[in-house]
């Protein structure tokens, strides 16, 4: 076995403990004794803490517990990224991103512990009840009732929550309804309530198949949850899409014009035809 220096090993072990959480002197002495298998005294612990402080680590007593506030090595960001952090703060303050903001803040907290600078967390806007309920249902596997404006009418649907999404500066909830993915703008929502019906888990049953031809087939980048299910001799590809919401998918495929054709289900072909005709009617052509 190679020779090691025990005292310096203890310094790092203590630092690692403080990295995870804050401790009182007694708790830290006990925790370090448990990790090292040797009895640690208050005197030794103070020496180790002083060593870390000497190296520039900001260890302070907060509410009677030793707390590591800063590790002066590790992650450094450029001015570009600092500017991005500001933009994220501004963006998030305008959105109600719920758990996404909390997850972002937890990452920033980890970064702060590993950096010589302090990067500010996003201020979490007042928790919105509907978003909170939607997230609760999502995490615990319950269906939700959503009442929302659909054109001039109010619709009330029982659906399975999938995610909270941003569409530019617009917030939306994404749900599974009648086997299809559906995006509902937050601004259209009148009410969300958690139902007492469990989610089935097997939520999306509609699979859409479409073909892409010519150069588009070569340059197309598959979306997440899309897969190529066939390649023809002429280079055309057939793609299976399971998760995109119907309206977004049809609009997206429409922009590929004749280089794309929806193959199945028949209902989607019919809806694509309706969409084309409705668009043509804008130009007085049917």
């Amino acid at each position, binding site marked *: 076995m190679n020779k090691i220096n025990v005292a310096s*090993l203890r*310094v790092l072990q203590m630092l690692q403990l403080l990295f995870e959480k804050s401790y009182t002197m007694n708790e830290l002495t006990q925790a370090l004794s448990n990790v090292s298998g040797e009895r640690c005294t208050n005197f030794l612990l103070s020496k180790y803490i002083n060593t870390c402080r000497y190296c520039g680590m900001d260890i302070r007593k907060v509410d009677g517990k030793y707390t590591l506030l800063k*590790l002066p090595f590790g992650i450094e960001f450029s001015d*570009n*990224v600092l500017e991005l952090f500001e933009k994220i703060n501004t963006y998030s303050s305008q959105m109600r991103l719920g758990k996404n903001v909390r997850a*972002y803040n937890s990452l920033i907290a980890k970064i702060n512990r590993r950096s010589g600078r302090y990067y500010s967390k996003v201020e979490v806007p007042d928790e919105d009840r509907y978003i909170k309920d939607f997230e609760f249902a999502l995490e615990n596997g319950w269906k939700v009732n959503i009442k929302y404006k659909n054109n001039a009418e109010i619709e009330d649907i029982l659906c399975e929550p999938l995610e909270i999404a941003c569409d530019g500066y617009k917030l939306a909830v994404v749900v599974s309804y009648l086997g299809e993915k559906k995006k509902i703008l937050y601004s259209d929502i009148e009410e969300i309530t958690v139902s007492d019906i469990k989610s089935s888990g097997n939520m999306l049953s509609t699979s859409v198949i479409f073909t892409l031809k010519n150069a588009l087939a070569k340059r197309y980048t598959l979306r997440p949850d899309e897969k190529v299910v066939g390649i023809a001799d002429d280079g055309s590809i057939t793609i299976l899409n399971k998760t995109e919401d119907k309206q977004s998918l049809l609009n997206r495929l429409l922009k590929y014009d004749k280089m794309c054709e929806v193959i199945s289900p028949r209902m989607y072909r019919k809806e694509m035809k309706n969409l084309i005709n409705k668009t043509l009617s804008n130009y007085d052509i049917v």
Partner: protein
Amino acid sequence: MYTFQTKAEVTQISLTGARLIVILSALMVAPRDLSELNNVLTECGLVDKYYSADTIRIAISTLKAFGCKIDRPCKSTKFKYRLSYHPFSLSITDEEVNALKTLYSGMTRNGDYKVAIQYNELFNILIENTFDEEAAGKLRNITAFYKINPNVYEKILSEDGKHNILTILYSTPLKQTSTKQFVFGKIFLKSNKLYVEGYDVNINKPVCYNLSRIKEVIKIEKGDSDYKPQTCKIKYLLRNSDYHVISSEAVTEKMEDGVLKVEEVFSNKFFAVQHILSLGADCTILEPADVREDVIGKLLELSKIYE
């Protein structure tokens, strides 16, 4: 790297502990050999004399006992100690990756390529600071800029706004490689891909190239500083505008019936037509006439497919 406190400020320290912290932090920055580690220790003012090779080796063994993975110095590491894992490394959870993905897609939805580039820089720094390969892979996939040759990426970004003449080696979607020469216009983001638009002086046409298909920037020559990129400006009516994303640079006017009148500039006619089609029945293009005709023509062709 450090600002050490004076010994008067802090008494009773473990010098070996401080030495180990310095060595660990030095290895976090880059692989180093014995003499480089000694230099770091003296340069930071911790000690004023060189340690023996054995002392440094004991420190390395201690770091390994702490849980660090340090490759042995060999030819492939240029005889340097290389840190491949340490217990303080950044762990990134799936929730955190998803949060970044949501923020990224929301903030770049309107085609803000500068934000996309800033995110890419952030992701690269996070990837450098984590040993979690799975999280790193997911972060790389958010921007997918890793598909762009790093040399091309840097050169193209540094050319933004200069209007120099670039000669590039370009691979088409059909895998044909050819040399292109164009006056640099501007960079833009579309469908999460970076493009550069410009004007091909040989064929006298506006052009647009996907950065991930540029194999090499062969030559950069002084260009025309008065160059103004050719664009395609369109006007259209948009209903249900809340359901659609339009560029942050678009000029909009709200009509009495809630319909939005939009004036938007695209790099070329192709992108303009694609945008109009993607808005479906909520959109009616007003002008220019040739784009309007193109849109109608494509819709008529499509209607035949679904007959």
